[in-house]
């Protein structure tokens, strides 16, 4: 085997190792400082890119929700109006008797669950977007 013929104990190998180890490699004196500066800048850019992405997502959420709400109103005007009227009516006219209306509301929701699911998802996304837009940075750095 070739490796068997490499013997670190013989004089030549010893001299070779000693000579190679005793040298030092020139390095710019301020390399460490410059390197740390570069790492700090890279980290700042990473955080900035993350924040920008979050902001864009939040903005996109608001736009999507707004557009979806307009489309929903245009596509299902009756249903939307009925929902709002039902809620407003319940609050204004029935007051404390709202609890009694819950089964009916559930029935109404059950009848059009697809619409309510979409609305709930959009509302959730909008709330997330708004919270992130207004307090995202503070939450992230806390």
């Amino acid at each position: 085997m070739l490796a068997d013929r490499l013997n670190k104990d013989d004089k030549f190998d010893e001299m070779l190792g000693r000579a190679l180890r005793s040298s030092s490699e020139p390095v710019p004196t301020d390399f460490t400082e410059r390197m740390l500066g570069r790492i700090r800048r890279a980290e700042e850019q990473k955080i900035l890119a993350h924040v920008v992405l979050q902001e864009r997502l939040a903005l996109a959420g608001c736009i999507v929700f707004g557009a979806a709400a307009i489309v929903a109103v245009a596509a299902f005007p009756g249903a939307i109006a009925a929902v709002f009227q039902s809620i407003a009516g319940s609050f204004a006219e029935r007051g404390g008797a709202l609890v009694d209306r819950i089964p009916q509301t559930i029935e109404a929701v059950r009848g059009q669950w697809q619409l309510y699911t979409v609305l709930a998802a959009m509302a959730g996304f909008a709330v997330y977007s708004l919270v992130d837009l207004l307090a995202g940075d503070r939450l992230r750095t806390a």
Partner: protein
Amino acid sequence: MLVHKVWDQQKEDNWLRLLRSGDHGAFARFIDKYKETVFLCCRRLGLREDEVEDVASETFLAAYNGISRYSGRAELSTWLWSIAYRQAVSYLRKNRRQWRLEAEADESRQVGSDKEQEPAAAIQGKETEKIVWEAVERLPRLWAMAIILYYREEKSIIDIAKIMQAKENTIKTYLFRARQRLKKALTPAFGEDIDVGG
């Protein structure tokens, strides 16, 4: 003695933990400890002086980004050597299409070239270290790298194979041939004082 050893190990573990957590102070120590190694790797692979610092910076940046994934199975220096080697080779392949070809052509160079065998008179008076380095510089780059890793860094054949992404037998061949060539080149300077064995 044992207490000192345990204390040193604890300090080392603590430093590694700080490194993995992204502590800048610990990373500054890491750079200070290994910057010469990285510059050496870049220079010996044939990067120009203006390219060496860029590739060394990229190496440390890659190390900083990857240190949290460092498992500790390999030595820290072996892990960094692997990164430096990959960075330098990838830079050379990207920027110099002929690099691989040059490295291979290098290997076919004959020992008997003018540069290879300096007259003994020219060698006399130089320091041993300088003479040895000059001889290593004249080796094909991959052979020189294997020699440096084996003799200077005292890495095992397995570690060198990992660093240079080559088979162990290839590394053994590099070392054997490089050693033979060095022996031939250095004999005029050191005469029969060197027992060259194999």
